[in-house]
């Protein structure tokens, strides 16, 4: 980092502009959530929030629209889904990366490339066959059906493989002479040493899971499995009938958990993405 005594005005204006670009839409949603739905629909929405209307948040959280779940329920579903997807992906990816990095077995490179190729087949591409498989297992409208197909992840496998490749051979050998078997090495050495990368991966995957739309829309038609993202979309009906303030309040609530996760893990996140060798 270059530090000069003077404040660099050009750099700061660019940065402030960037911040505004990100913050302004969020602010508009927040301001809109506290105003009258009809005003918003007419297009005269103030950018100053009406703080006397903050009660809308508790109303949105607990009171369900007819035929829908209250927002807190949908948030629980989303939270559960994001957590299970993030941990599931991390678990599977660590295992597969561990196998292709530290072990010699027949067709190892074939395995690796097979995993690699699935990068070209995200859920959206294989949505019909995946749905068929889930239907075959009777997993439509279940939490398992909602999460499992999103777990396998070539991206995380590749990232962990890179992390593991950077671990010096001597560390593996020292652990072997200390008597650590493969599982113990994984648990005692590899996972703690890769902790920063794990945290970074968790943040990315949590947000990924939280934002899922397409797959939950298809696989779960039962309103009890509605995620918050689905819930928002369902709230937007006919233009005149949509309660825009409630939609915006829900949107604000939907943004909070990912933000909390990112903020809490920010230090680890940056460390995991920037710290090359240890």
């Amino acid at each position, binding site marked *: 980092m270059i530090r000069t005594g003077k404040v660099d005005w050009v750099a700061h204006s660019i940065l402030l502009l960037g911040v505004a670009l990100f913050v302004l839409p969020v602010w508009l949603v927040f301001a809109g959530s506290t105003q009258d739905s009809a005003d918003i629909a007419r297009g005269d929405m103030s950018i100053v929030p009406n703080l006397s209307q903050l009660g809308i948040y508790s109303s949105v959280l607990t009171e369900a629209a007819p035929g829908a779940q209250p927002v807190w329920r949908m948030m629980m579903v989303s939270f559960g889904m994001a957590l299970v997807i993030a941990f599931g992906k991390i678990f599977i990816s660590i295992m597969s990366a561990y196998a292709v990095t530290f072990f010699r077995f027949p067709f190892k490179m074939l395995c690796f490339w097979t995993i690699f190729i699935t990068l070209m087949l995200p859920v959206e591409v294989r949505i019909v066959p995946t749905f068929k498989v889930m239907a075959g297992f009777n997993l439509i409208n279940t939490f398992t059906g909602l999460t499992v197909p999103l777990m396998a992840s070539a991206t995380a496998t590749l990232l962990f493989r890179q992390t593991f490749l950077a671990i*010096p051979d*001597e*560390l593996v*050998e*020292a*652990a*072997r*002479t*200390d*008597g*650590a078997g493969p599982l*113990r090495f994984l648990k*005692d*050495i590899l996972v*703690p*040493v890769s*902790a920063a990368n794990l945290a970074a991966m968790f943040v990315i995957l949590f947000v990924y899971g939280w934002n899922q739309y397409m797959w939950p829309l298809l696989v779960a038609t039962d309103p009890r499995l509605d995620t918050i993202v689905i819930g928002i979309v369902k709230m937007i009906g006919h233009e005149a009938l949509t309660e825009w303030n409630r939609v915006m309040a829900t949107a604000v609530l939907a943004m909070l958990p990912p933000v909390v996760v990112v903020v809490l893990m920010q230090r680890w996140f940056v460390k995991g993405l920037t710290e090359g060798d*240890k």
Partner: protein
Amino acid sequence: MATLQLENLKKSFGTTHVLKGVDLSLASGEMLVIVGASGCGKSTLLRLVAGLETPTSGQIMVDGRDVAQLDPAQRDIAMVFQNYALYPHMTVFDNMAYGLRIRGLSREDIGKRVQDAANTLGLGALLKRTPRQLSGGQRQRVAMGRAIVREPKVFLFDEPLSNLDAALRVQMRAEIRRLQRRMRVTSLYVTHDQVEAMTLGDRLLVMHLGKPVQLATPMEVFEKPANTYVAGFIGAPSMNLMPAKLGHGGASAVLEDGHVITFADGRRPGQDGRKLTVGIRPEHLRPEPGGIEIFIDLVEPLGSETVVIGRMKNGELVSVKIPSAGSIPETMSVVIAPEHLHVFDGETGLRVEAV
């Protein structure tokens, strides 16, 4: 304390024969230093003993028990790695205790052993730190501590000092020697540094291209190198090696420029005119008139001594070590001290002893 024996140990990677049969026997408590240039197979040898590689053939016996097929942890062997290989997320204490925990020792036993090792190595105050808070020398000590706490039968050192700066290296070298003497643990020490090789070992094994070339005490290796490779490898600056022919009656060597050097220790076998290589260390060349004429290329003052590198008439390089003096002339005449002459066969490179 234990003995270590290697019998016809071989290792190939595919068609590359890295070790071409090594026999070695270490007495209990002995420290043997393996020295050689990069790629001579010395590290592979160590890794085979440690169990990190599987030998292609041959036996590794610790205290008479063949361990060649055992896991590293079951061999009662501890290894100190070149880059220390400390667990970065563990404290110094945990680094040393890890292997003991896996072996299921009681908490008190572990605490006591680690504390003892830490005291021996002067690490007592650092037990709660993590490796990244330590200096290079301290990390090196922790790596040794990790080996000591296991109370192994054999210590293996894989160039443990090469990541340290020069001053620290000298200090740690002495420490390792003292420690090994005191603990009397049979040790194999691999290095490419000949000063370490000369000072640390009870015996020295020089390796070249996957084969042992000479196994003897450091002084014997220095005074009677078994062939031209060892002669050139051990000693700094390197021994001067020059082609020569056996003189009349085997009593002298005749250099290419016609200089005759009479052997001080007796005649060598062979026909007159047998091809020889004679070697003389730089410190055994005396600047004196009437000797070999050399044209000086380079002068390297070392403080108490000066190394002069020059060329003979036929273009061959010669280095001479002389006491530091004022100015060095452009040409110089040097005389070979015949009692320090080494004689090797011109074709095989093997040492030719007097008969």
